[in-house]
């Protein structure tokens, strides 16, 4: 039986982010949460392999999924994951998150493939999948653009690069991906309703044998400000708008 572990992160919906114009601080409070966009592409890629019969089981793993996690974890299940594992533990950094997820996968007997987003919406750290690969002692393919399939214990895929590389890797292997790889499905209502009945396993890092000091943060965000934008914000309206724009561009020396 070939099993895929899909790493899923919940994030504030950054597309609805507003920046405080006076302080330049991003207003994160009150933003709705969602499954981080690229993670849905990883779920979709996994579910497609299951539908092709090349994979038999897909399990979603998430760490500290946030205030709306109990509801949001149903989304990958509705898309076709068989089960979900929700791990809770102390607030940590990328290294700690990867340790918790890798331990949770190991506790379930490991996985033949681990699919994850290249990066998340909020931290954009682009590290979790790669770290999980090292912790599980397996290779990782960064930013996979296509998955050809899994056959005879070998994954065939196209890995991003200059130029991109067609690769073959014996399982187990970690793949990270972004929105180039596919279009995630919108699950029909029936599947959304049924998702609530699929198994969701709750675990703590303590259950997994991880002590809090192993997960202690070693990087701390000390400030977060939108870059200064000194734009002129000059609007032209009316019949002579194009003339005035051309004049302005000529004055700037760019036309």
């Amino acid at each position, binding site marked *: 039986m070939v099993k895929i572990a899909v790493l899923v992160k919940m994030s504030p919906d*950054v597309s609805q982010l507003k920046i405080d114009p006076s302080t330049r601080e991003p207003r994160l409070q009150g933003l709705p949460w969602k499954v981080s966009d690229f993670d849905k592409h990883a779920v979709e890629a996994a579910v497609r392999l299951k539908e092709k019969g090349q994979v038999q089981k897909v399990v979603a793993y998430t760490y500290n999924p946030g205030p709306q996690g109990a509801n949001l974890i149903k989304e990958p299940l509705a898309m076709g994951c068989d089960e979900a594992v929700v791990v809770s533990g102390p607030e940590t950094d990328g290294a700690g998150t990867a340790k918790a997820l890798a331990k949770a996968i190991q506790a379930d007997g490991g996985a033949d493939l681990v699919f994850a987003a290249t990066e998340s919406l909020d931290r954009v750290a*682009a590290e979790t999948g790669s770290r999980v690969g090292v912790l599980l002692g397996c*290779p990782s393919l960064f930013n996979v653009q296509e998955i050809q399939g899994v056959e005879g214990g070998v994954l065939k895929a196209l890995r991003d690069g200059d130029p991109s590389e067609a690769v073959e890797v014996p399982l187990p292997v970690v793949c990270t991906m972004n929105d180039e790889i596919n279009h995630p499905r919108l699950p029909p209502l029936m599947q959304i309703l049924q998702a609530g009945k699929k198994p969701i396993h709750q675990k703590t890092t303590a259950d997994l044998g991880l002590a809090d000091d192993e997960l202690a943060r*070693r990087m701390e965000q*000390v400030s977060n400000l939108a*870059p200064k934008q000194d734009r002129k914000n000059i609007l032209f309206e009316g019949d002579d708008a194009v003339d005035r724009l*051309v004049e302005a561009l000529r004055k700037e020396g*760019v036309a």
Partner: protein
Amino acid sequence: MTTVLVYADDAALRDELVSKAVGLGSAKVATGDGMGLPDEDSMTVAAGLAKAAANVGADLVLVGATKKGKDIAPRLAAHMDWPYAGDAQGVEGGDGWTVARMVLSGNSLATYRMGPKAVVSVTPGTFEATGASAEDAGAVDGVKASPVKVTGTRGREADGFDLASADVVVGVGRGFKKQEDIALAEDLAKAMGGAVGCSRPIAADLKWLGEEHWIGLSGHEIKPAVYIAAGVSGQIQHIAGIRGSKIIVAVNTNKDAPIFQIADYGIVGDLYKVLPALTEKLR
């Protein structure tokens, strides 16, 4: 004494990082050849760098954030069990390492304080190359060959087209009603000696233009002298890709489109009228 190990798979970027590293401590530089690795796959380089970092007693490893560097660096961090900051736009020493990097889909610049040991990948162009040099970190032993077998390569579809190097970019957004209408943007770009880019939906959903034209967080980051956004609403991911433009011009029928907030000059109007008029005047 603080020791900084540098690796980049691009020579110019390596020079930039070495120039910075000599100011942060004792600088060493590792290369695939110098380490004597069995191959230069990312798995192998990451494992080799972990050994090199231990050999030279590194406190910080700076990796050039090329596509390959962004693959190598987090694996290296996991091998070392060190924290990692990716695509950094600034690194300073002092009490641990202080690193600046974009977060929130490219909309905010966060500063992180990291511990005394860290792996950081650095965005190309962040530091100036001064011609400084660093001692080679030397060979490493016992690194296994990568299990990843490369069976072929595939270039990006648009050979030679490079949006990032265009001086003028005309951006196509959802305000265009049909694929054929992109000719209006092409005409303007031609008149100004520039290239055509586009927003996410045009490349990813409608596929009216190839990915090489895609501007934004998942596409290309551009820094032209002039960016003309035509019928582009200004989604936060698009803005992340155009922030470096010297002058931003927006054409949109919707006066409240967020693109106007980041524009130097804007025309509230129909791109189907504005673009041909602009082309005529700028030809």
